[in-house]
């Protein structure tokens, strides 16, 4: 079976700062792949390239069978509907209520009739998935950090994407909330049979959620294995992360 995301020889630099160098990876359907790397190693840059928020210098990126660099803006938009994206900073629209936040992605991808009929149910279902139905008419500023993260997840789920990309889903949260978010990610994967790309330096989250881990060191794929095997590794560069 063809991988849902495949990346070949990706290069990206900002001036003299070569962030990604010949980076390769592939995610299979239904799989949770984690990318582990230090702060500033280019993890956020990598997923922003995959969703075409940033231009790459060279390389090939196939998402759900399409080369994203060859798509026009309409094709790109419809592809983006199948890819959920959880921002590191949540990026909730702070001038809108939770309901409006969740309805926003439907604007482009559903017709007016569809929205009239189905938007309410879709919003409620997504909120139920993350256990925050009661916040529907609140503003993002009224929520705690953990709640905001879950709302952002609900917004990423509303179009029932085939792949979800998580940018540091647990950073800045306490261990208990982090575990809740990790469990949520697992239940989402089960319910929607989606694949996920999880970017993190939170070992507990990676341990709980991932099937496979790629170590991103100095812009390249330094190692790739299951969490347990990487943890046993004797390589000092890998050990550094687990100590």
């Amino acid at each position, binding site marked *: 079976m063809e991988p849902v995301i495949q990346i070949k020889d990706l290069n990206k630099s900002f001036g003299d700062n070569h962030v990604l160098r010949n980076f390769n990876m592939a995610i299979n359907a239904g799989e949770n792949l984690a990318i582990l790397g230090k702060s500033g190693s280019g993890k956020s840059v990598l997923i*922003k390239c995959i*969703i075409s*928020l940033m231009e790459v210098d060279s390389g090939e990126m196939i998402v759900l069978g399409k080369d994203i660099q060859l798509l026009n*803006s309409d094709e790109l*938009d*419809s592809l*983006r*509907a199948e*890819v959920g*994206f959880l*921002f*590191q*900073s949540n*990026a*909730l*629209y*702070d*001038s809108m209520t939770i309901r409006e936040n969740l309805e*926003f*992605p439907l*604007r*482009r*991808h559903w017709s007016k009739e569809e929205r009239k009929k189905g938007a309410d149910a879709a919003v409620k279902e997504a909120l139920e998935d993350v256990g925050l139905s009661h916040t529907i008419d609140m503003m993002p500023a009224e929520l705690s950090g953990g709640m905001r993260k879950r709302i952002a997840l609900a*917004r990423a789920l509303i179009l029932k994407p085939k792949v979800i990309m998580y940018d540091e889903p647990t950073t800045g949260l306490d261990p208990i909330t982090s575990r809740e978010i990790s469990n949520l990610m697992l239940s989402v994967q089960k319910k929607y049979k989606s694949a996920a790309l999880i970017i993190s330096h939170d070992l507990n989250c990676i341990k709980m959620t991932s099937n496979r881990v790629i170590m991103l060191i100095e812009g390249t794929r330094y190692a790739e294995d299951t969490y347990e095997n990487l943890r046993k590794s004797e390589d000092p560069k890998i050990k550094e992360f687990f100590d």
Partner: protein
Amino acid sequence: MGTVKLLKQIDNAFFREVGEIAQFTARFFQTVTKPKQEWEEFVNQCFWVGYKTLTLVGITAFIMGLVLTIQSRPTLVEFGAESLLPSMVSVSLVREISPVITALICAGKIGSGMGAELGSMRVTEQIDAMEVSGTNPFKYLVVTRVLASTVMVPILSSVGIAIGLCGGYLGVNIRGHISWNLFWHQAFEALSFGDLIPSLIKTFFFGFAIGIIGCYKGYNSKKGTEGVGQSATTAVIVASLVVFVLDLIAVQVTDLLGLT
């Protein structure tokens, strides 16, 4: 040597900025001509522009009308032309005072508001989030705001003229006496199309410039909260400056066309 270098740097930064604003404006026209406008958001923005500035424009215009009348009276009395007071106030308000005052207030409130709002949306990745969810953020955020300020500044300026004239009426009646009807009759009689049309066109340009600059500053905000504050302040400064420059150009053009 140092000064020359510094001047060169300032010069470069200035021209780069002018170029970028020109590009931003070109992008606005490219986007606005594409089908499917965000009408709902446009109406929202119009409402906000009006809501945020109407009181301020009203109060300022009223005071300007009043003060202008009181201060001009002695001069006109000297020439025995006291009866020209309503005409004079109305022509000054229409031609210059209301358009410029309204534009400056809007540059302060709307320009900075757009700079700060879009800036914080940029910094907190909300603009990226819109793009990812398939909504063109330039169309949704920038085009609607620029159109709203382009439409609203002329309307606000017209309201300013009306309220300013009320101030003028009060000013005339402090020392002398003139009936309400006569005042308005004289005020309108003094006006010709040569006063009204250039004023209207001028305010359209003011509104457009304020919208473009506020949005440009916010949309291209640098990372960090500091960047947001900077976007807001420079939006006000640049927009106010551009209003004066446009005013200068407008007076030259009307002069050339023989409309004065």
